[in-house]
């Protein structure tokens, strides 16, 4: 039903899907536990730490997705797409540096 190009895209898509699945499930699970702990009477240090880890994992997920895309396109030698994704990755990294170093 699908041509060769589509099959290759399929593979990349599955790889990116795996990154997103791990990232979103992990972060949501950590945030859920953190939220429950934060609402229970004794305010613990653990709750706020879990919430921080969950939020950071959440933010890192799309960045990881872009990084994996760069690798995936490089493997297939699609240089135009490598250039596009690398550009986005660089901007995201600059964003991290500016947000936390500033």
């Amino acid at each position, binding site marked *: *039903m*699908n041509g060769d190009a*589509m099959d290759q*895209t*399929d593979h*990349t*898509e*599955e790889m*990116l*899907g*795996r990154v*997103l*699945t791990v*990232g*979103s*499930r992990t*972060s*949501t699970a950590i*945030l*859920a536990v*953190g*939220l429950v702990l*934060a*609402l229970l009477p004794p305010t613990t240090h653990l709750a*706020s730490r879990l*919430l*921080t880890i*969950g*939020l950071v994992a*959440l*933010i890192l*997920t*799309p*960045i990881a*997705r*872009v990084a994996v*895309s760069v690798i995936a*396109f490089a493997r297939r030698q699609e240089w135009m*797409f490598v250039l*596009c*994704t690398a*550009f*986005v990755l660089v*901007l*995201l990294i*600059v*964003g*991290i*540096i*500016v*947000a*936390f170093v*500033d």
Partner: protein
Amino acid sequence: MPDEACSGGRDSAASFILHSTFFIEAAFPGSLSTSRMVVTPLLVVVTIALGGLAGVIGTLLGLGGGVFLVPFLVLVVNMPFHEAAAISLMTVIATSSAVSAARAGHHLINVRLGMVLEVATAAGGLLGGLTAQMLAPRVLQLLFSGVAAAVGIVTFVRRQQSNALGPDAEIGSLGGRFTDERTGEVVSYRVRRLPLALVSSFVAGNVSSLLGVGGGFVKVPILNAWCGIPMRAAAATSAFMIGVTATSGALIYYGHGMVNPTLAAAAVIGVSAGSAGGMRIGRRMAPVRLKILLGSVLLVVAALMLLRAR
């Protein structure tokens, strides 16, 4: 003057992102401070519920739902705008990741097109500070209200238009082909007017951090009405992109301690649950009905922005 804070002779690429922290401050004076909302169990429950609602509608249409969540939080729980925007960007990332993870492998997401458009989005985000320097927040909101209304009307007018080509049609380097789960038919499409798609993505990135949205509400209708992309593929590709779009803004807000962790967690959980529901409904919904929903949503957004700008 709101844009005093943006002066200075910085000219490196990083400075444009730096500007964006200033423009948030400029748009919402005193806002670059840590969260001030008092968290109560009731507020957490309401936030989860509002997130759930935004998640359902957003996922159906390929938006992050930020475009509803921000006004919901501002109007219902009286949250300061910047705090709502900060939380909203977190939920946009969550929806994007969860929805795209579930859809990966079904060909609905046009990964190549998404990657190309993300370049424009990233550039838009980079220049967001500059835009805000040139336009007062009120002008920006009025402009947006106008654009949303116009795009909403076009969505209504063109709701019967189908972008689907036959199963064996030539799709070009950026087109796509997927199996429609509702009808079981194979749908092919070509991307037309790529420059317009790039412009809409640029605009989406440009306003993302200022408005706390992923920008899907600009992209999806334009990709569908003018660029030849079927509604379902436009929504899936937009949903795939918005996580990256929202990340730039989320980094700024998070780095400045403006994200209330408890409420962000509540909103993310609500949105995740909502988007799981939205995906279920979306598979079975006819494109025409999706477009009518999208058109209505755009008109509501236009009205909300107009109200805020006054």
